[in-house]
Every structure is written in C-alpha cells, then in structure tokens.
C-alpha cells in the first residue's frame, strides 16, 4: 500500500473545520454569517427589482395622479435619512464594542440607541405616508404611486422587522447571556441593518433627490 492509498482512509484533522461533527463552535458562527450574507444578496435582488419597477413607473405610470416632482419635497426625507445614518453608526459602535468585550449593559445601551433612531426613521416615514394619504395620493391612484408605496413600504417593513428583532435580542441577551449564539445573532442583525441603510441611500437618491430635481 503506497502512501497515497491511506489518504482515502486517513482521518481529517479536526482543526480544518471541515468535519462538521467535530470542529464545531467557532467555525460554525462564521458559516452562519456567510449563509446570512447570501440571503442578504437575494434580498438585495428584491429591492433592485422594486427600484427598477419604480424607475419605470416614475416616467410612464403617472396616469391622472401627481408626478414625483409635484409630490415630494426634500425636508423630511433628509431628516429621515440622517436618523437612519446615525442608527447605522451607533450599531457599528455596538458591534465593535462586542468585539472588544464591552459589558452587556454597554452593548444593550448602544443597541437601544440604534433602535430608537430606527423608530424615528419609521415614524417620519409613516407621517409622510399619512400626509400623502389625506391628500388623496393613495397607492390606488396610479402605477407610479403603487410603485412608490411598495418600494418605500418594503424598506419600512424591513426596518420594522429589524426593530422587533433587536428588541427580542435584548431579551435574549438578558435571558441567555452573551453566548456565541446570541452574539452571532447580533452580528447578523448588524449586517441586515447596514444593508437597509445602503438600500435607503439608493432610495433617497432615486426617489427624493432625483424626483425633486427632475
């Protein structure tokens, strides 16, 4: 039997992390985050398709309704954007702190600040929807408004679920402690939150900036 023959039978060194059964723990959280990344990529596709639909409807879908130029102003959306940008920054502090073993109180504190800014963002968005709504500019008016509400609404739903997820994580940090599992969950929420921020910048530019300037 030559040297290579035994290779087939040789046992994989467990520190390679390939042996699912054995090398557990540390490698697993990296894998979970990798999987979550991929999921986010497919979520991004969904956003892009809604944006593409909006980009079409913005030109061809006005029907008898208002045009983006007539509908939008820059004031509130800018405040809204600032709120979300700040929340991304504070989330960054939160996860960085976790990396350097900040106390749980600290981590939770920064997470709470993040969620508050997220809620402010959401509040402004809902207020704006409400304003449009009472002027009669509902999604049922035109293809353009349908696309607008669907796109911004989908982003808003994502932020909402992010907030709920964050609240639940606070409960889990308190009840389960800062275990590897909870930490990975926080990391994943972080990725999710940052992605929503990037998506929002695209939305802000496409819908509000370009809409008002058009």
């Amino acid at each position, binding site marked *: *039997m*030559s040297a*290579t*023959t*035994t*290779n*087939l*039978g*040789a*046992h*994989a*060194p*467990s520190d*390679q*992390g*390939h*042996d*699912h*059964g*054995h090398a*557990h723990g540390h490698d697993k959280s990296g*894998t*979970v985050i*990798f*999987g979550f990344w*991929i*999921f986010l*990529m*497919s*979520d991004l*596709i*969904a956003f892009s*398709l*809604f944006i593409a*639909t909006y980009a*079409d*409807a913005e030109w*061809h*879908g*006005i*029907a008898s*309704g208002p045009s983006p130029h007539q509908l939008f102003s820059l004031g509130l959306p800018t405040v809204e954007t600032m709120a979300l940008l700040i929340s991304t920054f504070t989330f960054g502090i939160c996860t960085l702190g976790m990396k350097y073993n900040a106390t749980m109180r600290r981590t939770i504190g920064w997470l709470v600040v993040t969620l508050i800014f997220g809620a402010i963002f959401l509040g402004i968005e809902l207020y704006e929807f409400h304003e449009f709504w009472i002027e009669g500019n509902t*999604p*049922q*008016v*035109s*293809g*353009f*408004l*349908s*696309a607008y*509400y*669907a796109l911004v609404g989908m982003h808003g739903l994502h932020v909402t679920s992010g907030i709920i997820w964050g609240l*639940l994580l606070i409960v*889990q940090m308190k009840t*389960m402690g800062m*275990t590897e*599992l909870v930490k990975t*969950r926080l990391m994943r929420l972080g990725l999710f939150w940052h992605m929503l921020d990037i998506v929002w910048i695209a939305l802000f530019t496409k819908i509000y900036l370009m809409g008002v300037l058009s």
Partner: protein
Amino acid sequence: MSILGSLKWDDIFIVPFFKEPSLSTGIAAAAGGIVVLGALAVLVLLTVKGWWKPLWTHWITTLDHKKIGVIYIVLAAIMLIRGILEAVVMRAQQVAPAPGFLSVEHHAELFSTHGTIMIFFVAMPLLIGLINVVMPLQIGARDMEFPFMNAISLWLSVGGAALVMASLVVGHFETGGWTAYPPYTGIKLSPNEGVDYWIWSLMLTGIGTTLSGINFAVTIYKQRAPGMTLMKMPIFAWTTLCTAILMIYAMVPLAVASVMLALDRHAGFHFFTATQGGNMMNFANLFWLFGHPEVYILILPAFGVFSHVIPTFSGKKLYGYTSLVWATVAIAVLSFTVWVHHFFTMGQTAHLNAIFGIATMTIGVPTGVKVYNWMLTMWRGKLRFSTAMLFSAGFMFTFVIGGITGVMLANPVISFAAHNSLFLVAHFHNMLIPGLLFGMFAGINYWFPLAFGFRLDETWGRRSFWLWMVGFYLTFMPLYAIGLMGAPRRMAFFTDPAYLPWLLVSMVGALAVLGGLTSQVIQVWVSIKNRESLMVPAGDPWDGRGLEWSLGCPVPEHDFTTIPNITSREPWVEAKERGLRVMEPTEFVDIHLPKNTSMGFLVAMVATVGAFGLIFEMWWLGALCWIAMFVLVLIRSYDTDWEKTVTAEELRADYERHKHVVETTPKVSLDDEFTTKNRGLVFDMEKAV
C-alpha cells in the same frame, strides 16, 4: 365579511356536479373525490398498520439529508402522477369531436395546473431531493450545513403542493397558464380564488427553494472533505453549486412579481393596470427573469447526473472534466441574459431582439460542449445498458433535437411566427422530458441503493424507459408539425380536420407515457417485494467512481465514519485500483448530528394554513398564522440543545460491521451486475490485479 372569507358552498368539489351534471363537472368531481379518498386511504392505512409513530419519529421530524431528499422525491412522484393524468385528459379532449367533453374553463385549469405542477412540484422536488440525498455523500459531508433550514424548505414545498391539491377539492385553480400573466389574472378578469392559489402555493415553495439554494451553496463552500479543492469536486456537486446560485437569485423575481399581482388583486394597486399607469409587460419581464434561469435550475442537476452515470456504465473516466465545469458555469451566467426571448413580440426594438437572440444561441455552445464530452466518454468504452444508462443515452439523442428547435426559436424572426404555437409546446417538452425527467430517472435508478440498500428492478426499469422514449416521440413530434401548420397552444379544441391525425398519434403517445409511468410504479413495487435479493449491503453495486460508492448501502445516518482526505478527482477509483475495498480510518472521534425536531414541519404547516386563509380572503386566519409562525420560530431560537452525539465507539462498531460485510461479500464481475449475485462490490475482473 364572514369568517369564512370568500368560501362558498359551490367551492366544494362535488356541488357543481349536482347543480349542473355534465362530463366536465363529473371529471372535476371525480378528481376531487380521488384526492379526498386517497387522503382517507392513507390515514386508514397509517392507523391500521400502526405507522403513525414511525412516520413521525423517522420521517416527519427528521433532519437527515438523505431522508429529507427521499420525502422530496416521494412528493414529486405523487405530483407526477397527477400531472401526467391531466396531460392525458388534455390530449383526449383535443381528439374528441369539437368542442370536446371539457368546458373551456376546465381545460384551461388543466393546462395551468399541469404546467405549474410539472415545474414547481415535480421537477423542483425531484432535483432538490436528489441533491439532498447525493451531494453531501459526494463531497464527504455529514449533512447539509443548515439541517433545520433544510426541513423548513422541505415542508414549505410540501405545503405548496398541498395547496395545489386542495384546489381540486375546495374552489378552483387559475386558468391563465403556469405563467399567469395579467391583466387576464387581475381581479376583474379572474375574480375567483384561482390566481391566489397560484400566488401562494408558489410563494411557499419559492421561499423553500431559495433557502435550499443557500443551504446547498454554503454546504459546498464549507463542508467539502479536506483536500477536495473546487476543481476536484464531482460534476454533480458543480452543477448543484451553479443551480444553487441560480436558485438564490432567480426565485426572487417570481416572488416580487407575485407580490405585485397580489397587491393589484386585493389592495387595488396598479402595477399592471394599463389605464392607470401600470405596465403588464413588467410582469412578463419579472416572470421570465425568474423563468429562464429556472429552466437551467431544472436542467443543470440532470447534466450532473449524466456526468456520473455515463462514465460509470462506460467504465471510463469522464472526458474533459475542466471543460464540463466551465461549460456549466458559462450556462449559469448566460442564463440570466436571455429572458427576453420569451416575448420577442413585446414591441421592443429589433436591435434589442437581435441582442437577446444572439445571447440565446450562445448558450447552445457550452451545451454542445457537454454533449461532446459525454459522447467522448462513451467512445471505446465498455458500455453496459442499465436503466440509468438507457435514460442517459435516450437523453442525448432526444435533447439534441430539442436544442436544435430551441436555436430555431432563438431567431426572433422565426419566434414571431412560432410564438404561442404548439411548436413551442413541443420544443419545451423536448427539453424538459429528456433534460429533466430522464436525468432524474437515471439518477434515481443509479443512486437508489445509497438510500435504501437495494437496487431497483432492471426489467421493469428498462420497460419504463422504452415506453417513455417511444411515448415522448409519438406525443410531441406531431405537435411540432401542427405547430408549424399554425395550431396555437392552450386551445380547448381544434376544428381544422387536418390536425386530427396528428392529434391522434399524440394521444397514443400520451398513453405510452402513461404506460411508462405505470411501469415505474410497478418497478418500485416489484423491487420492494424482492428487496432481499436486490440487496447490496457491501455498497458500490455498479463499479462506481465517486466517494459516495465507498459507503455501504444503505448509508448510515452519520454518512462517513471518518471524513476521508481527498487527493484526486476519482478517489474511489484510485483506492480500488490499489486493492482497497473499504475506507480505513486512522482515528475515531465523537461526532455530533442534529437532533430530530418537529419545528420545521410545524412552521411550514402553519404557513400553509395561513396561505389557505389568504387565498379565501380569511384575513384573520392569515394574520393568526403569521403570529403563530413567529412564535414557533421564537421558541426554536431558545432551543440550544439541538445536537446528539455519536460516540467514537459507536462509529468503530459501525465500521467493523461494514468491514465484515465487505470482507464476506464475494467479488462480482461486471457480467453479473444485473443479477442477484450482485450484493455490492461489482468490479471489472479484466482490470483487476
């Protein structure tokens, strides 16, 4: 609004028959009756035999990739029976004197359910199931990377299929074809629940498929045995990787399109209302942005199967591994660049059509590369025509014809004339039946022993192949002809007498296909009955080449006692050439496997009930189920005790047992491969040292 939403008495399957008795309502009632009686029969059988508990503990709650794969395939088999029966009824309808025995709506429901079922509930579960069973064994993994998510994917697909089945019993399915284009499927023209059945059943299975894609991709990236670089990976794993990437990106457009359609239908949105600034061609674009990659999701795994079956039964190494890998990757990338060929008639410029036409033809190149690879693999090989090999050879002949008509249709000028004709119907069946079904049949015949420990009966297998093959040609060649004569697709009946002879031949062909399917049912039945004599406990019943054949059959739950080190593309061939018949572990260590859980099943079933609520506008039920799902997931997130340990001693005992089986099993020569002498460990005596 009542708490039963839009549900009415007339929605129950037999009521229309009593109100207006006719052959059409009678057939609908009978179909609903079969579903109800079939379900009852299963319940009674389970109770009488006392199988509830084993079903629950061994199957429903399982996270074992092999069992999950088997459940997928069983699901596909059940749905295939329905899909083929519907096809036969449609063929019969068109040869009956006009206007036939089905109402126009009933016929439209039939092609819509047939198409939807064949794509989403036959093709997809078949390939996802096969990947689940085989891929981890090929790359030396113990399970999927995310076994719990795997169970969720599975049961969501089952839930989607259950909804399509429910549409036979409660209410109707839609009548707008498997593509469900608005404005026809908008609330004005399709007011009943049919389109909502389509939307929500596809939503469930679509989410399941996306999650499967993530699971496969991460598993392949992270779980390969040490030493198995990407370019040492088996081709089936490569095609799985490409299919997985397509699943991750391509299922989303379908979900987006159907969410928009649902908003249009139920919330008064105007995505697709032309008079209100909507654009229905956006639906077509989104749908085919999914739909075209989807056909490559369907076909790539079959290409993977052929790339293993053909070398095994030719007794030769696969010809041109590297070119096959690159051809696969090229097809996956190109598949995103051709979707417009489904609507050259939309009204875009000729330039755009030319670009998409050329892109489409380009895909023919890597596909052609593959066909040559398989042919050159067979060249001067010692061919053995097992059922799996027959299906592979049949595929190669037939698929090339479909490819040629595909290149014809890729030319926008021809496509304008052939658009929505039976020529197109013949073309895509010509791709899907060999390129998907034959591939999956070959794969199932080939790898069956890994999951169950015994081979499938060859006699009935070969009969099924010939019936399928002849049936396919008889059914679809005539459709090419009358398609060119001008027959449109989706017609309830034709009045032109010139079509009749062709349609009659097609009818005969459909019956032959039905015969093929029946032979397969018999094949499984006979094999189970004779399983003792078909048992191959020593594994490797076909002189196989991949890692999966180094395991005993059936493969134990933990797959590998120790994960092997990989130094070449065909490690098992090399090992056998050196006289090795079993893997020799150097060291046993404790391993962990996922514990069974009912959570995946529960979450998906709650989602299914919720979807049913949405279909019949019982919004409260939808909301309730949404919350329930959320709570279930939350409960699961507190469960940290999800693994069980298999100790080194147990692994050692298992290894010793397997080694004993192998050592006491006499070697079998290739000539006795299909006889009862085959207890595993077949090999080529001439090559043996």
